[in-house]
């Protein structure tokens, strides 16, 4: 019965995502980004530097950097989309009264929450997979670059989306739908900036500055996962060849190291913890 409730609500959440305007907005944004990047990458192929064409190594380095930049745009769209979907789907239903008739059914609130989460994860991951794959194909066709670990990269991006939407769900059990979306996206941006600051700290061998990045990556793992995804998508040979400060973490669209299993374990714990917290607050809430 509980499993049936979870899957029913998950299906409902997917249907909501498919039928609400947010999907159309998401599709339009993604299409615009993909088109722009296709145009940009096609220009990159014929570029000349100081009178001579780029070597293939240079081209690969630039392509992998620009790919990371565009993937950052995609992850931002995914983050915005799911965070603004996670808020209304729970807090909006409580506010409007839609939740009343649903929760008066013989079902557990935790099953409803889990179903919503599952539906949102499926939606976010589906979006990352489709849009990311489209982007990889564009880069492949225009400059002939194919990332070394595409599946790992997309999985980490999907995990990043999951982390953010879990935060969005927790916030939605506490505050209004719009506010929960805004706060989630704000925190996402703040962690990214903290990650960049930490990277600069690494490059300058400034420990306290570097710690800003590490601490923020623990508190909200979006930036850590994003760095792992970048590492999976960039070309290691070209990087090693052209190295320097870029490799030391000073540049925000290149990542010097992959993720450890310990960190991935922490992400799983983090998500479970927030989901549990969301369930507790949702269970105690008077409707």
């Amino acid at each position, binding site marked *: *019965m509980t499993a*049936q*409730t979870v899957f*029913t609500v998950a299906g*409902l959440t997917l*249907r*909501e995502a498919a*039928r*609400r305007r947010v999907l159309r907005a998401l599709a339009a944004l993604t299409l615009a980004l993909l088109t722009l990047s296709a145009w940009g990458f096609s220009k990159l192929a014929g570029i000349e530097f100081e009178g001579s064409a780029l070597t293939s190594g240079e081209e690969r380095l630039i392509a992998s950097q620009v790919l990371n930049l565009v993937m950052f745009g995609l992850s931002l769209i995914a983050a915005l989309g799911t965070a603004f979907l996670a808020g209304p789907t729970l807090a909006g239903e409580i506010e*409007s*009264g*839609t939740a*009343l*008739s*649903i*929760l*008066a*059914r*013989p*079902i*557990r609130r935790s099953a409803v929450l889990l179903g919503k989460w599952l539906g949102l994860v499926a939606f976010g991951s589906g979006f990352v997979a489709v849009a990311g794959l489209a982007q990889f194909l564009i880069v492949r066709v225009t400059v002939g670059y194919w990332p070394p670990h595409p599946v790992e990269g997309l999985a980490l991006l999907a995990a990043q989306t999951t982390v953010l939407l879990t935060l969005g769900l927790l916030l939605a059990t506490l505050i209004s739908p719009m506010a929960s979306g805004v706060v989630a996206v704000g925190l996402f941006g703040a962690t990214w900036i903290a990650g960049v600051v930490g990277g600069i700290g690494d490059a300058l061998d400034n420990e306290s500055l570097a710690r800003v990045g590490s601490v923020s990556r623990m508190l909200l793992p979006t930036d850590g996962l994003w760095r792992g995804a970048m590492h999976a998508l960039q070309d290691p040979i070209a990087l090693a060849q052209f190295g320097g400060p870029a490799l030391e973490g000073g540049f925000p669209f290149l990542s010097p190291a992959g993720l450890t299993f310990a960190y991935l374990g922490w992400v799983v714990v983090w998500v479970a913890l927030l989901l549990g917290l969301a369930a507790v607050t949702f269970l*105690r809430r*008077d*409707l």
Partner: protein
Amino acid sequence: MNAVATDLALDAAERLIAELPPSPAVWCSGLRKRYGRQTAVDGVSFTVGRGEIVGLLGPNGAGKTSVIKILLGLVRPDAGEVVLLGRPAPDPGSRAGVGYLPELFRYQPWLTAAEVLALHVRLAGVAVSAEERRESLAAVGLTDRARDRVGGFSKGMQQRLGLAVALVARPELVVLDEPTSALDPLGRADVRDLLLALRARGVAVLLNSHLIGEVERVCDRVVILDKGRVAASGTLPELLGRRELRLRLDGVTAEAEERLAAAGRVTGSGSSFTVALAADEPAATVPDLVADLVELGVRVHAVEPMRISLEERLLDILRTGDGGDSR
């Protein structure tokens, strides 16, 4: 020998259980709920029997909707117990046979009316055929709109859909919170017919409504809430049993006034008098009183026996806090 005796005892026990009256549709005791400093519900207890229509009445802020939400597990009470259809309320299973139309009725605007019903049937865990679901929509007059998205529905249509949602999963108990607030007079008449049809099918109904006339026409029993407490409760004859007699008299002497007071509590001034009569007053009371008054030299212009309406009784209870004996 022993085995036979055990079998006999078991049979007897089974028969005893089978013959027990079914547990009431709603049983609640000592419900209490505070929001900050405000006490919304303060020691509310009542029962709704199987197949009974019970009206919940009271002024705004009396705690009616809070009580309903506590019954359905939507609000956690600070104290008190709820049993729905024989199962204690913290267990979600207690709501398996319950249909609910909230006061704030909103349904997923991106779904069609038919999809909303299908969703609720799945969540209720009941197998209801598509044909039966169509009948539920037909019962509230939404047959033509089954394939339309709820987002385009008027308030009245959404409330009708809410009624269909409450009724679709073959409930044994239906809780309706202001079911006619968005309906026109025709819609209200439809709801009345629906309620009577439910009673005929043995479905228990807890009805919260501001429309006293509606409650008076369909309810078997009424629970009146005021400031979070049960101010009065009982069957309609119990609550409304008190009758009164309006008289227009001339030449009332002290003796005549005494005779009037002997019949019941007298109010009034000048030539108009109102005598409150007890519910179980014998039929001869009024003619006897009139004959005695005439004998005492009183000139009788008009004698008008009145029955108190639920509205008057409600106002009386809320103003004086007098719940009478039926409490």
